[in-house]
């Protein structure tokens, strides 16, 4: 089981901010999809540090990212 960040894409698409993407310490872990106008997490790369949650919820009060438990099988599919 891994603790990873998960973006609620419908919520995220309402804003055009990309701030979480710019503050993640892992390269290409939080990415931005211009098609849906939302951020998305590459689960295999996420170390679960919650800095994106701090940026989205504490700083910007947008609450679009939550931490979820995933199993290795689920991450392998993504």
């Amino acid at each position: 089981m891994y603790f990873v960040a998960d973006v609620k894409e419908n919520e995220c698409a309402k804003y055009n901010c990309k701030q979480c993407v710019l503050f993640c310490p892992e390269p290409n872990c939080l990415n931005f999809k211009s098609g849906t106008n939302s951020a998305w997490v590459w689960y295999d790369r996420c170390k679960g540090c919650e800095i994106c949650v701090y940026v989205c919820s504490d700083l910007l009060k947008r609450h679009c990212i939550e931490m979820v438990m995933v199993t290795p099988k689920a991450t392998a599919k993504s």
Partner: protein
Amino acid sequence: MGLEYVRISPGFEKYMPRDYVDLVKYGPFGKQLDVMQMGQFKELVEEHPMCAGCYMAYFIRVFYAALPNPEDTIVLGTAGCARLALSQAAVPFVYGNYGDTNAVASGLKRALSIRFPDKVKDVVVIAGDGGLIDIGFGMTMHSWFRREKFTTIMVDNEVYGNTGGQESGMSPKGLQLKMAPLGKKFDKINAVELAKTAGCVYVARISPTNPKRIAKTIRRAILAARHFGPTFIHAYTSCNIEYSIPTREVLADARKREKQDFKFYEWMTDEVKEFFEELERKEKQEVKK
């Protein structure tokens, strides 16, 4: 390295690792990408073994996104945390003995300018507070006295994080650490003033709270080093393990320290200032066209 070495020979695309193909197709080689586009292109750094929530890793991520000419850059590092991520990037990396980064960089820069007189090759040293100001102090200072034309970046986590938490010359006064239980008795070394006195032409102190500003500072330090002389950046990159900062609070800590003792500071000589003013004027004219 040069772009010719990056390209995949025709017909070999399907045999190359996925990450490499992505890097050639969607990476920053040969393009001028803005750091604000991070997360929308394949970055030069790959997955690395640094701790969750490490802001030194974040600084290195922004550093690689901000390089003005990644295909003609060589990065030097030394023992310490930073080398764990620095060595996982698609930019040549030289790993010296502890503390000799600036001596190796001096020789490398001189050799490159003889071997490639018609090309600009950037040499950048990134090492921690231990590598540059404690153990490598002599070599760091002498490279500045000799006015060697390369950039030195100190990623200052204020502790020997790799070896269990001994105090370094950059730890704040009075601080108790896991391997320094009596508390530090001396002041934090003022690296920025040392660099100014030793002859650096561009000196900056920064806390990683604003990616655009980090990128601008790194770009300026590298461009100034090409033409004028040594440049130095002192960056605060907290160690959330040794300082027991919950990972969620790491950015909050960087913001707090920025208000206290890591306020953004930038100093340059008059000729460097003129050079950047001229450069920005030209860039604005190009945008208008």
